[in-house]
């Protein structure tokens, strides 16, 4: 039977070309709408709700969110194929959370995979493993956040506990997909040496994981909260000084993992 998976629909709010982070090489990032978590520091607040909403940007109203087919997205993805080839890049699904739209994500990753385009997802891992399992055959890199080892604190800052996330991390690592652990370093949440060490020690136990990325907190999303008529949950939390980031990097390296600051 003819499989019309290219007609699968999903909801996205942006496609960003020539991104050089979130996976190797030059990448096209597809931002999906909707997320299970509500992280206080989230820099894409327009990604959190599945509903289409209006955001004021530069004095103008912008509609955030549109429904597209896999085929439509592929047309844009294909435009930069030559740059993926030259840089070892490809496509990254970001968000929001691509696991919140599993059918669309699977179809999109499958379309890329069948056309020889490298695939990555940037995901919280907060979903039933069956959903993750559906993606894995078409996935080259899993960029996964481990935000905190203490489940209660995790819930306090993201609205969800972390047990499922940690368990999924173990299973993803076993599956053989290339797994990279990323830690957003957030003031007041997980920026102490002990907290980072705990995360690194956990990451160390994951099969095949050799590298951990520390992503320093930034306030780039602040104006978006305003544009959505929401309050910025981080208040006036300070940025983390580079010297402290370097200290945390050494903490990670002491566990034997390679550490990289920034995506």
């Amino acid at each position: 039977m003819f499989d019309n998976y290219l007609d699968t629909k999903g909801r996205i709010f942006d496609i960003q070309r020539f991104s050089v982070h979130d996976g190797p090489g030059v990448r096209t990032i597809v931002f999906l709408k909707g997320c299970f978590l509500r992280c206080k520091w989230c820099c894409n607040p327009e990604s959190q709700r599945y509903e289409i909403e209006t955001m004021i940007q530069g004095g103008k109203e912008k509609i955030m969110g549109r429904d597209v087919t896999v085929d439509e997205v592929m047309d844009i993805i294909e435009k930069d194929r030559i740059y993926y080839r030259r840089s070892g890049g490809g496509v990254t699904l970001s968000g929001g959370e691509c696991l919140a739209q599993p059918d669309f994500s699977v179809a999109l990753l499958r379309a890329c995979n069948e056309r020889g385009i490298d695939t990555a997802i940037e995901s919280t891992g907060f979903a039933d493993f069956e959903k993750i399992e559906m993606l894995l055959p078409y996935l080259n890199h899993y960029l996964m956040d481990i935000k905190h080892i203490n489940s209660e604190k995790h819930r306090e800052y993201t609205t969800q506990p972390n047990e499922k996330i940690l368990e999924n991390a173990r299973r993803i690592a076993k599956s053989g997909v290339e797994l990279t652990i990323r830690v957003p370093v957030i003031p007041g949440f997980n920026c102490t040496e002990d907290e980072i060490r705990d995360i690194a020690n956990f990451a160390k136990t994951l099969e095949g994981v050799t590298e951990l990325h520390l992503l320093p907190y930034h306030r780039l999303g602040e104006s978006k909260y305003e544009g959505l008529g929401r309050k910025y949950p981080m208040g006036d939390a300070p940025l983390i000084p580079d010297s402290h980031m370097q200290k945390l990097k050494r903490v990670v390296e002491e566990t034997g993992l390679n550490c990289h600051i920034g995506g």
Partner: protein
Amino acid sequence: MAKFYTEDIRVSPRIEKLRDALFAKMPEIEADRAVLITESYKETEGLPIITRRAKAFKKIMENIPITIREDELIVGSATKAPRGCQMFPEFSFEWMEAELDTVETRMADPFYIAEETKNTLREVYKYWKGKTTSDLATAYMRPETLDAINHNIFTAGNYFYNGIGHVTVAYEEVLAIGFRGIIEKAEKELMTLDAKADNATEKRVFLEALIESFEAAITYAKRYSELALSMAEKCVDVKRRDELTTISKICAKVPENGAETFYEACQSFWFVQMLLQIESSGHSISPGRFDVYMYPYYKKEFEKGSITREFAQELMDCIWVKLNDLNKCRDAASAEGFAGYSLFQNLIAGGQDKNGEDITNDLSFMCINSSMHVMLPQPSLSVRIWSKTPHEFLIKAAKLTRTGCGLPAYYNDEVIIPALISRGLTLEDAREYNIIGCVEPQKSGKTDGWHDAAFFNMCRPLELVFSNGMDNGKQISIKTGEVEKMTTFEEFYDAYKAQMEYMISLLVDADNAIDMAHAKRCPLPFLSGMVEDCIARGKSVQEGGAVYNFTGPQGFGIANMADALYAIKTLVFEEKRFTLAELKQALQDNFGKGGATGLDAKAITIGVVKSLADKGVEVSEEQIANIYKNVSKESAFVQNGGRAKEIFDMIEDVPKFGNDIPDVDAFARDVAYTYTRPLESYKNPRGGIFQAGLYPVSANVPLGAQTGATPDGRYAYTPVADGVSPAAGRDVSGPTASANSVAKLDHFIASNGTLFNMKFHPSALEGVSGLESFAALVRGYFDQKGMHMQFNVVSRETLQDAQKHPENYRNLIVRVAGYSALFTTLSKSLQDDIINRTEQKGF
């Protein structure tokens, strides 16, 4: 062991001293050359022109003051003062005569001039009235051509008033056999001269002139040898005394004889490079493939152990500094177009040899080191990229780009080689191409390319469609019918093509008139000795002595015209949202910005400028723009911009070139043909053909100031699009989209060069991933058959301007945190943050 030495090499403290000394004072105008050439011309009245040129060159070589500057290892200066310039009255002088009292205080590229020098020049100029190449060129031109020039359809200013330059000579031959070897070649030709041949007399006179010129150049080098020796004798510093003694020995040997050491090769190179710029005033005398022809001398010595990497690098750095010692005073208007005292001495590294093998070597990397060490505008460094370019070389080049100096420019062998072959070069010659001036490819030592022959503003013929060939009340072009009566897009587009073709025919007339004037009045015997096949043919480069002859005038404004015609097609003819009559009115109204009297305002502005000029007041482009602004404001209250503004908004919503939209891009490709195709059918007096270039230097700004509003939504008198780049602020879909669109133009047919400018903030190239993704961008654009790419890595000031005028910078990329973004989409506070960040980095 790695194949290449890719590391930086320590910069000698000498370089900073040389650099500082060069820029310690404002550049100065010197009259010595003008005086000597005038004396000589007076003595040689009645002799053949080529003989007069040789005798004048000889007089200059024997008498022009010479100087060795402190700490120099490579010697030979055209002027006593650093960065000074000589004058060349044989090409034109009226502008200089008029500007003698203002040249020191003008905004763009001022020059100090002593009162005594002014008086000397005034005296000299008396001789030249009616005798210049410019005078003769004017006499050759059709009156319609002069009209088109006066009405700013195109400008042929470069060669109309100056020497041609724009050449790369056979440096490798001079290095190998010396000037003596060239003299011997000419002597041999003389001895075997066929007395029965129809050109025997012309050939003999030419060869004699050539020999006289090269003998004179040898004398000049010997003067340096003697000067160095006498300075050495007086020098108390032992180290410097040794240096001067070495310089003396080297100048006694080269360029008369072939070079043996790397040092000798460097000095020999420099004499050639500088003397060409004393013989004539042309700019873009381009060193070309320095890494290729210098490498054998370096390799031999390095392997033998008689030179260190450090000393070789120091010598190269010295040359890089010296390239900035040469200077040129242009008229005030041209100085704005070429601002920055630029001489466009293009030096290129990397690429393939005549057999199609990659030729990148250690010197290729050292060329990039030198540009990093001196951080000066000259030479215009270029790199050749093709499928077999070593990745580390591209990354090394990217590191230079990251410094924000705007260098190097990247060229694609895979497009340029076939493009040159299509113009008649052999495969071997095409593979050995280098770049002249801005972006113009050619084969060194064999070509008179006449690149940069004119700036043709593609927007002006569209204005002529709307005015039915009228401009400021005068019929300056053909009538293509009243625009209000056109009923199909094809009819309109045909009218545009007809206006283009007519104006191109006048452009050719202008270029060929100037071309002939140079052949008749300023043939160059010294240059001709280093361009094949002048000696065998017995005539100068200017008379058609070169193997390959081209004329390459450049068009610009493609993006504006592509967007304009696409908007007309869509809105007027397909969607019928407004009529051509309404559009014509909207253009006159400057889309409601300049008002109902948009064209009147232009006429008033021109009137004001003229009356100021009559009173002897100089008006800069910037001032003209201000006058226009004020005039427009004055009349603003009488107009109703309502409909014009509506039309503007509709145009804004039509897709634009530069966003990877197949329809629009295909259309742009076709629009470019309206310039590139008609040109191909014309011939020049040197036996060559015309070939189009698509690049603007910086003329898109001043010439844009002479162009009314265009149907792409561009306001009157604002800059037009630069090169093949999308119109400013129109490409809003990121760098890959922009590159993909530009690559969809036909770059092969624009064999005189295309220019694609991309703007980055240095932060976008941060880290290894920044460099790698940058390399991928260049590779990706080139895979799609783009020809040239350069990166304007922007400064703090630019970012501040972008905050004020975001509409002009919608394509500007900055690196934010771990990623890159379009600057204008960021919040004010974040923008401020990035601006402050650049300050810390010293940009």
